[in-house]
Structure formats: C-alpha cells, structure tokens
C-alpha cells in the first residue's frame, strides 16, 4: 500500500518535472525566436529550410495515404449506420465535419509524433552522447537557438499544413467510397459535404494542429536534449517521446473539444 502511494507520488513528480522542462524549453525557444533577433542573435536560417523539408515535405506521402484510408473507413462506418435510417446520403457532411474538426489534425499529429518526434529525439540524443551539444556550447552557440528553434518553428508551420492535407485526403477517401458504393456524383458530394460546414470547423482544427505541433516538438526536443546513459538512453528517449506526445495530444484534444463544445458552441 505504502509502495503504491510512493509509486504514484513518484510518477506524479516525474510528470510535473517533464511538463516544467518542456514548458521552460518552449519559453526559451520563444525567446530565441522572437526576442534574441532584436539583439543581433539570429536563428539558423539554413537549418530552418532543411527542417521544413525533413519534417514537412517528406511527411506528405504517408499523411496523405493514411488519411485517405481513414476517410474511406469512416465513410463506410457512417454509411453502415445511416443505412438503418435510410439516410445514407447524409454520409458526406458527417464525415467531412468530423474530419476537419477532429480526425484530420489528430491523424496528422499522431503520424508526425511517430515520424518527426522520434527523429528529433534520436538526433538530439545522439548529439548529446557524441558531445556535439557540448561542442556547440563551447563555440558560444546556444543549442536552443541553433538546433531547437528551427525544429519547433518548422513543425509549427508544417503540421497545420499537413492537417489540411489530411482533411483533403480523408474527404477524398469518403468521396471515393461515396462514388463507387453509393453512386454519388462529384458535384452532389461536394455540395452536400460542405453545405453544413462553417469556417470555424476548419480553423478550430488547424488551431489544434498548431498546438499539437508544439507538444510534439517540445516533448521531443526536451527528451533528446536531456538524454543520459549513452545509446541506451537515446533509445529510451525516442520511445518515451512517441508515447508521451501521443498521450499529450489526445489529452489536450479532449480539453480543446470540450471547450469548443461547452464554452464556445
């Protein structure tokens, strides 16, 4: 019993420490992104361009493919339910709205936490182990300015874009099902899918994607930069990054959705 309480206490402290560490890192990132440039210390632009490609462009195929599949699945499940009411023609708006409000951003973020979050943690962790971070510090180059700002910034721009791509691919998946199984014409599908959608549905989803991007890059950078214990530590940091960021995404998503549902309906 005492052991259990002790364990819960320790986990609680670990969580607090991690949240504190990630928050501190993100505040530092903001400083180096927005304040330091006015003092003549600019983030690394070349590195930023590279990150846009690594984190964003190279994620396009997998995000598109998986979102298309999820759109297809969602369309089938929705149509199955609607058929009982004889209202299969309502499939397009149901899928489209659920996608832009929720599933597009969520799927993009979960894929990115596995693809990009893990890569960031592994890269930074390896640099810690190889004394590269120490070397940066000794050249009077702050690792946050030099490495973390480009990564966080690039993901902040790229994840909402990828979420939009996921929205489009998923709706296209629903259309593929609608056209082939329910004989919907493209014009009818388009008109029906977007008839009930309001701008807020779209931007609330994209706002979430932006917040999720900070969770992913913040957790990944924190885990990477605090690696201890050699190659084994890098492996641990990578796994923890994926698990913790998916956990954080779903938790924050729940909070967001509740706020939008209850407070700003």
């Amino acid at each position, binding site marked *: 019993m005492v052991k259990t309480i002790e364990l819960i206490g320790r986990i609680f402290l670990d969580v607090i420490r991690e949240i504190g560490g990630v928050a501190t890192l993100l505040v530092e990132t903001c400083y180096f992104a927005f304040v330091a440039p006015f003092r003549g210390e600019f983030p690394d632009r070349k590195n930023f361009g590279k990150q846009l490609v690594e984190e964003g462009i190279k994620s396009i195929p997998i995000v598109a493919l998986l979102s298309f599949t999820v759109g297809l699945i969602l369309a089938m499940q929705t149509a199955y339910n609607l058929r009982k009411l004889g209202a299969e023609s309502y499939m397009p708006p149901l899928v489209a709205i659920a996608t832009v409000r929720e599933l597009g951003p969520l799927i993009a973020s979960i894929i990115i936490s596995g693809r990009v979050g893990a890569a960031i943690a592994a890269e930074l962790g390896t*640099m810690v182990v*190889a*004394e*590269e971070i*120490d*070397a940066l*510090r*000794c*050249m*009077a180059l702050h690792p946050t300015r030099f490495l973390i700002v480009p990564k966080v910034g690039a993901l902040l721009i790229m994840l909402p874009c990828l979420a939009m791509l996921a929205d489009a691919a998923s709706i296209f998946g629903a259309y593929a099902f609608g056209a082939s199984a329910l004989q919907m014409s493209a014009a009818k599908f388009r008109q029906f899918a977007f008839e009930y959608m309001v701008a807020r549905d779209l931007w609330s989803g994209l706002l979430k994607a932006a917040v999720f991007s900070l969770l992913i890059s913040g957790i990944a950078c924190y885990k990477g930069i605090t690696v201890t214990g050699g190659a084994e530590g890098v492996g641990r940091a990578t796994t923890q990054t994926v698990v913790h960021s998916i956990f954080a995404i779903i938790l924050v998503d729940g909070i967001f959705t509740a706020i939008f549902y209850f407070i700003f309906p």
Partner: protein
Amino acid sequence: MNAPVPNEPPPEDIILRAHGLVKEFDGRRVLDGVSFDVKRGEVLVIMGGSGCGKSTTLRILIGLEKLNGGRAWLFGKEISQASEKEFNALRRRFGVLFQSGALFNSMTVGENVALPLQQHSDLDENIIQIMVRMKLEMVGLTGFEHLKPSEISGGMKKRVGLARAIALDPELVFYDEPSAGLDPVVSAVIDELILDLKNKMGITSVVVTHHMDSAFKIADKMVYLYQGRVLAYGTPDEIRNSDDPIVQQFIRGEPDGPIPLKTSRDVYLQTLAGFADERIDKT
C-alpha cells in the same frame, strides 16, 4: 612541490588559474581542492587514472559544469562570477577538442570548420573558405572538405576537431584525451600539432591525458590527479623525480603498488567465503 596557488586574481601572464576546485555529483565529491596555474604559452598536462576527475576539471573550466567550491580565473575573469554572456565572450578566446572529436555529423568536414567563422566573424564566405583550407592544411587534411564525419577515421575526426577548435585563432586550447583510441603514429602527430601551435603561434594548451609518453613529450607543467586531489604539480622533471609512490607507479605503469586496483588474495577469499555462506543460507 611547487608554491601553492594563491586565492587571488592572477597576474597578467597567468592565462588560467584554478584554486581549490570542488565538484560534487549527487553528494559524491569527485574534485576536492584542485589547484594549478597555466602560464601564457605553456602546455599544461593533466594526468591521472580514469575516473580521477580529469574531464570534470576540464568541463568546469570551459563552463559546462558549475563549481561547488573554489575559484577559477580564465583570462583574468573569475568564471563563477561570469554571466552566460560574459562566458560566451571568453569562449571565443579558447577552443576545445573533445574526446570523440564531437564533429557535427550532419555537416561536412569543411562546414564543421567553417561554422565558428560563419557564426562569430563578419568575414566574407570566400575568405571563410580560404581560412577553412588553411586550418585543414595545418592538421594535414587538405582535400577532405567534402567528406562527412562518418566517412573518415577516428584520427582524422580528431584532427578536424582540432582544426575547428583553432578556427577562430584562440589563445588557449583545451584537449580531452587527444590520443585516446588512436594508433601510436596518429597520436604522435597530434602531439606534434600541439607543440606546433605552441612554438609557431604561441597558443597555450591544457591537455588531459593518461598516455605517459606523450605527456612527458609535450608538457611544460604537469598536474597529477588522484581521486579528485592534486597529488603532484610541477615540471616534467619534478614529476619524474617525485618521491610519491602513487605517482611513481603511475608513470611507470606498474600493475602492483599503492594504487588499489586488485584486492589482495586474503580479502578476495574472505569476501568469496562470505558470499558463499549467504547463498548457502538461502537455499
């Protein structure tokens, strides 16, 4: 052996002074009163067995670890009083060669050497490329600019690391085990480079090593660390003639002596018997 290092800011010609450095990790004291002076233009060698605190001493002096006690002055500035910004100003005046070379693996050899120049000087990119070639030439690696660190050998990585450390023409260079893991020829080359920097450019060096040959070859002054304390401090001759049995055992590389590595036969048998008893009781 030598006049003790005073607890006061050093005169102009002392580029680095450590006085009574204390460092603890999780309550365990790994440095306990380490003191030495480094004169401008000298090579100081810090030696000692592994785990005695050599790297920790170095990491404190280059600002990667905080002191728990004692004082140190670098270029006349007390390091524990320096803000991050002031320390960064000091960092442009010294270079560091890390044990593994610590090259940035995502950049080519040339980009590694160019980085400090691009970040800390207003030089034109063409001038920077010329300087990169000059520095690589100095370490005998012309023509390797376009290779990635993963494509060159360990010895070459260290030489590139050295080229990068001296890119900004520092007054002082720190080396952590420059010859560890290298074959005798390459480590002799590194020793030559350290002496070249001293003789041709007047660069001061602080070298951590446990290779006795190279230590005696390059050193003007030596510090022998043992369990976080300075056991001997002086010129190579003074160290060679030291009457401390631990120092003597170390510089001769003898397996038996006062340095406790192997437990004695009796102690070994006793612990083994105790362990066996315990196990038998459990069954």
